[in-house]
């Protein structure tokens, strides 16, 4: 660390913690946000990705309103026959629970990362990835059930509006792709953590991975609310 770096640290400590501090930060030289390049870039990417999902959901809601045929009743379509009775939304409830839980393990991984506990960080990240993989696996089961048992296709379905199938496969597919990418991303970073790859650079990468993972979870909450509960 150079001499300039030290003086910069002193300046950073002097920034007041109110609106004038925000102004000072934003009009400062060198950098606008006190964070690394990678973290800043992840935030910008997530902002852009938010718009992608927002467009998907707005598009879905529009076709749902504009279609001329009745929309299938989601509590019936997404019901599972368990213990001799139909339980509405049970599968999706479990999936949501798993995904939200994975956000918790992810947050714990970030914590242990900053404490430089490599082993616990990596294990928690792998658990998170495992939850994610479980989610994708259950999604595959859900898709199979819809396609094979109930005859839902992207272009048509026996229950009513064809847009039901098209939006469902498109949106959950796009989200599932995000989760799959997240599982790979988590596993790669976890292995690198375990190997000590970040000892010199620091463990911010765990938090960056976590940002992506929390985002994927948060998006799921909206998909869940707008697709399954509506």
């Amino acid at each position, binding site marked *: *660390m150079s001499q300039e770096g030290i003086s910069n640290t002193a300046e*950073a400590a002097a920034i007041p913690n109110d609106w004038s501090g925000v102004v000072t930060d934003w009009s400062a030289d*060198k950098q606008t946000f006190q964070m690394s390049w*990678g973290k800043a*870039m992840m935030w910008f990417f997530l*902002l852009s990705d938010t718009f*992608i999902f927002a*467009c998907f959901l707005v598009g879905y809601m529009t076709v749902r309103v504009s279609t*001329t045929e009745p929309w299938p009743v989601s509590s019936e379509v997404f019901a599972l026959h368990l213990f001799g009775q139909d339980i509405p939304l049970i599968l999706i409830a479990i999936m949501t629970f798993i995904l939200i839980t994975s956000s918790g393990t992810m947050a714990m991984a970030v914590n242990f990362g900053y404490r430089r506990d490599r082993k616990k960080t990596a294990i928690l990240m792998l658990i998170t990835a495992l939850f994610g993989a479980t989610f994708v696996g259950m999604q595959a089961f859900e898709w199979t059930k819809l396609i094979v048992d109930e005859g839902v296709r*992207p272009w048509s379905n026996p229950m009513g509006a064809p847009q039901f199938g098209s939006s469902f496969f498109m949106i959950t597919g796009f989200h599932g792709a995000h989760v799959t990418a997240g599982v790979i991303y988590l596993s790669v970073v976890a292995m690198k953590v375990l190997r000590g790859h970040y000892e010199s650079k620091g463990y911010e990468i765990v938090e960056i991975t976590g940002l992506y993972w929390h985002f994927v979870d948060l998006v799921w909450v909206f998909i869940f609310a707008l697709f399954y509960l509506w």
Partner: protein
Amino acid sequence: MAYVAIADRQQELHDPQSFLTKYVWSQDHKVIAIQYALTAFAVGIVAVILSNMMRLQLAWPNEFAFIDPQTYYQSITMHGMIMVIYLLTALFLGGFGNYLIPLMCGARDMVFPFMNMLSYWVYLLSVVILMSSFLVPGGPTGAGWTLYPPQALLEGTPGSNWGIILMLVSLVFFIVAFTMGGLNYVTTVLQARCRGMTLMRLPLSVWGIFMATVIGLLVFPALLVSGIMMTFDKLFATSFFMPALISMGESADYSGGSPILFQHLFWFFGHPEVYIVALPAFGVVSDIISTHSRKNIFGYRMMVWAIVLIGGLSLIVWAHHMYVSGMNPYFGFFFATTTLLIAVPTAIKVYNWVLTLWRGNIRLNVPMLFAIGFIFTFTHGGLTGLFLGNVATDATLTDTYFVVAHFHMVMGVAPLLVVMASIYHWYPKVTGRMLNEKLGKLHFWVTFLGTYSIYLPMHYLGFLGIPRRYYAYGETDFIPNSAVDVNISITIATLIVSTIQLVFLFNLAYSYFRGKKAGPNPWEATTLEWQTPDTPPQHGNWGPELPTVYRWAFDYSVPGAVNDYIPQNQPSDETTGDAHETSDTGGGHQ
């Protein structure tokens, strides 16, 4: 724990060694910029040829056997799409953005050079996919650059099988490429500036490119989503955008989709796209005008806020493209209001450019000529925008040549004049040699007057009510003979303007080898890119030490200073020869 700015940390530079890593798989932002620019020019030439084909048909209908209706519609589509996205967006952001952002911010490179390189190669892939649609059965899509469904997907529209799919796939790749590049540009501007470079000391070029990139990151998702949905409509017979309809006498396999939804998604991207092209032009032209009139830009803060405000407003005006699409009239009211509001920050910018020129010590060289030409064409195109932004006048003018004239003036000619201005301006930094001044002036005058003689008469055609996108008009009562003559004169002007661009290309090639040697700072400009230790700048840009910035980017003709310009990285006590602080107009440095 307090955070140490990355600019203050030690960095390792890996100089590329082999030819391949230096010029082909390069991660250097300057090489990537040139790759982007050359690719964009190459597709640009294709687009110009296509426009000439359309003009030949319009002037002398049915004279040319190689232009049938199908070719004509394909030319319209590909011309528009290439010009807007693959040329202008790629050139301004991938080309100028890549070259100028690190140099003007005082960074060694973009923050993630590898991703930056990937961005170019994915862009190239998207271009290859787009061009390949000329070779597939049925040719490229002929749906118009807006690709409106249902017609884009139905039999009868040229390229409704292969062409449209390749177009959509190419767009998806372009968006991926743009996102990788755009994230780099935004992060570099915000997080990788050099010591002393505050946001409010940035040259306006960086502000314009930055804001355009931000808008791009927010609106390209809409194009991506509509592209994906439309691909599904085509490949899987889903009905996102396709209502139940009868095509070729048979009812198609669609029902219940919403074509208007596509228009909303498309224009949520499509209108901000205008500003993705225009904002970098605004920024760049501000710097050029200030430099060559040896005067600080008038109202720097206003200029910055105008850029930010235009960027923000551009997100809520999209439906003014849809006044006649069958929208709720109250929507029209809202969108007309926001559209006309944009005129306020835009007018501020135009006034400020003119006030910068006012009493300036104007050096009427080629970049300056192009920049002044831009003020004319942009003002002109902006004023006709007022007609089209109003619902009542738009209802009669829409889909006529008035619209064609308007948007070519405002987002075709105006940004392209800035492209020319900036190439003449920065070529000496990129290559170390000046472009030929005489050829440049010839290029300017023919281009400037030529484009006026193309687009000015088009307004008249529009007032006559001549619809756009028609292959031939035949014997039509309301079209007088004069309109036919005007069409011929427009075509001749088009051919001349297209031809003169060859002089420009020749100038680029000739000057690269034979041009006058340029010093490090031929225009005596203040911004950081002219202060690099080497010209052209080496890998890493700044030699061993990053520059330190002491002032804003516009210290021209400062009273008491030795030179009529003070570079941004010059400390105050070196400007006058003594230790008095006389020239710190940049808002003061702490």
